[in-house]
């Protein structure tokens, strides 16, 4: 048991001095909130990949329309309903970019050759001969714009409402909460449809309609957080130092809730994209020649059997964006607050 003794010399039993401050030293570098969260998000490969895809899609939403010589709203009926054809990929037959279509009886034909069209439409053209590549990115741009604006408005209303309700408490809080309860009791789709009927379809009305229904969950989350923080020391300290209510809420409380606010906003973006597409599909979407992903899918849907690419391409884009936003939101939620559930 004591065979290691040989290596032990007497002087090793002299008292050692340990700097007491050293033992309290934190051995790992301290991370701030953002660094820590980023480290956690980074572990989630799905979320990171989705984030990259989202960035690329946003970039292309602005740059994409400039990449083709065709404008999203220029009609060229001579070249209508042409299938996708891409230089270089047109000879690879199993790719859907060879410029061919199938007839109802199953035979294949190449409308480019038949109609002697020289141009290359990467994603094909629609019934009015508009370039679908340009339209797709234009539509993505508008859909994303609507989604981001709606999420932003949601956030502003929700945070303000929730913070006031939670901070003031008492009667104000209970009245405000009863109001939220009643609003939550009305299905979103009713409110959205009614608002659009009243305001007439358009970008701003759609944003308003979506934002009006989405803020309640944000308000609830923020209220719960404010209630939690209200009695914590840092808030009490700020109070004793004479900080005003506004500065307590906005300077001391809200920075501490960035996590939950961001997560909630991330979830409301795909939600807004969904409602935009939904409205387009029941005929309350944007008007021609404007395009959103929803209207593109809807237009494509009507010629699905003959020209399936017109529906499939924007469908894939919506699906991609929705999946990516949801994955990022999930990743953020797990990173910021594993206990929070949907």
């Amino acid at each position: 048991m004591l065979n290691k003794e040989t290596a032990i010399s007497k002087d090793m039993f002299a008292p050692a001095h340990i700097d007491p401050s050293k033992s309290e030293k934190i051995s790992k570098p301290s991370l701030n909130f953002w660094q820590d969260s980023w480290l956690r998000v980074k572990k989630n490969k799905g979320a990171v990949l989705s984030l990259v895809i989202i960035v690329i899609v946003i970039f292309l939403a602005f740059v994409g329309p400039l990449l083709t010589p065709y404008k999203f709203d220029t009609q060229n009926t001579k070249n209508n309903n042409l299938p996708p054809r891409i230089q270089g990929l047109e000879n690879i037959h199993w790719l859907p970019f060879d410029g061919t279509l199938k007839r109802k009886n199953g035979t294949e034909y190449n409308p480019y050759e038949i109609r002697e069209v020289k141009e290359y439409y990467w994603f094909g053209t629609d019934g009015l001969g508009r370039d679908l590549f340009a339209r797709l990115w234009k539509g993505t741009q508008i859909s994303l714009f609507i989604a981001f604006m709606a999420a932003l408005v949601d956030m502003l209303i929700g945070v303000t409402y929730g913070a006031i309700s939670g901070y003031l408490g008492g009667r104000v809080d209970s009245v405000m909460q009863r109001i939220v309860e009643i609003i939550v009791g009305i299905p979103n789709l009713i409110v959205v449809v009614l608002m659009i009927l009243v305001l007439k379809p358009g970008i701003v009305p759609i944003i308003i309609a979506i934002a009006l229904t989405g803020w309640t969950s944000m308000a609830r989350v923020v209220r719960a957080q404010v209630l939690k923080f209200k009695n914590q020391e840092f808030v009490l300290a700020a109070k004793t130092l004479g900080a005003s209510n506004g500065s307590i809420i906005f300077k001391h409380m809200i920075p501490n809730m960035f996590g939950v606010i961001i997560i909630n906003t991330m979830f409301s973006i795909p939600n807004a994209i969904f409602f935009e597409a939904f409205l387009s599909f029941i005929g309350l979407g944007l008007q021609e020649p404007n395009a959103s992903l929803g209207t593109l899918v809807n237009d494509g849907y009507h010629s699905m059997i003959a020209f399936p690419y017109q529906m499939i391409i924007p469908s894939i884009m919506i699906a991609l964006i929705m999946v990516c936003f949801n994955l990022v939101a999930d990743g953020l939620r797990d990173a910021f607050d594993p206990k929070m559930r949907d």
Partner: protein
Amino acid sequence: MEKILQIKDLNISFHTFAGEVKAIRGVSFDLFKGETLAIVGESGSGKSVTTKSIMRLLPEHNSEIKGGQVLFDGKDLTKLSDKQMQKIRGKDISMIFQDPMTSLNPTMKIGNQIMEPLIKHQNMSKGAARERAVELLRLVGIPKPEIRVDQYPHQFSGGMRQRVVIAIALACNPKVLIADEPTTALDVTIQAQILELMKDLQKKIDTSIIFITHDLGVVANVADRVAVMYGGKIVEVGTADEIFYNPKHPYTWGLISSMPDMETNDEELYSIPGTPPDLLDPPKGDAFAPRNPYVMKIDLEQEPPFFKVSDTHYAATWLLHPDAPKVEPPEAVKRRQSQFPGVKVGK
């Protein structure tokens, strides 16, 4: 005395987000038939992990037994298949948990929860198991067991629920009972009742108990022998009297000094400075060195081996090395030591 359970050089790691946490680093101890062994230490010292590993109840996805043996009945429990392990759990070795509020299934009647191990291990019929459940409830001191047997956990108070958990654990007369801080979550008066009940039942069914706690008061009340854990290792082991009246390890000194007794006055009550070691990256040498007021150079270089104090008493500290300087233990410990010679070793 007959050894019923032997733990030999057990090493357990957890794989976490931050890296490998070496939670148990070479733990060995024996459990004798009919005795109560208390394992004490602060949170994170590895007491619960050690006992959970005996039952193989550690989460499979992130924990790993890196080495060592758990010998029971001639078998190494770390090598058994899940099926074989199921036959031991609840029959030969059973367990009581810390929080009675969460350790019972909320949507299952109390009776069914007690009957489960009886039906599983003793092939009892439903009717017989039910009768035995009522009997067990009576045994653990629950009034009107015939009615209570059909109730749900939320209809019981905390102390009553812990009695039910004990009834479940004792259902098959286990050879070893592991009690993981069974009284920590309870009120002080209820604590005393539960401890009395456990001592009483131990006599009746002659089981060995491993009692995990951080409360030295509880240890003094129930334990025959005590193992003190720090930083994933056992640092001192001995009979209850040896540990209480003649402790040798500076960590045990710290624990005892921080326990109030009749003579302490307010100014004297002691707390061990510093924080437990980070087991993600265990320090070189003695893990306790940074918090040890008697620290020597060697503590920072080499891990101390066990030094024998008596046949039953060992401590892992360089202070027991013949070359080490004589140090004065804290007042509270000295006061106790002065009482020690009068007390016979062992109960």
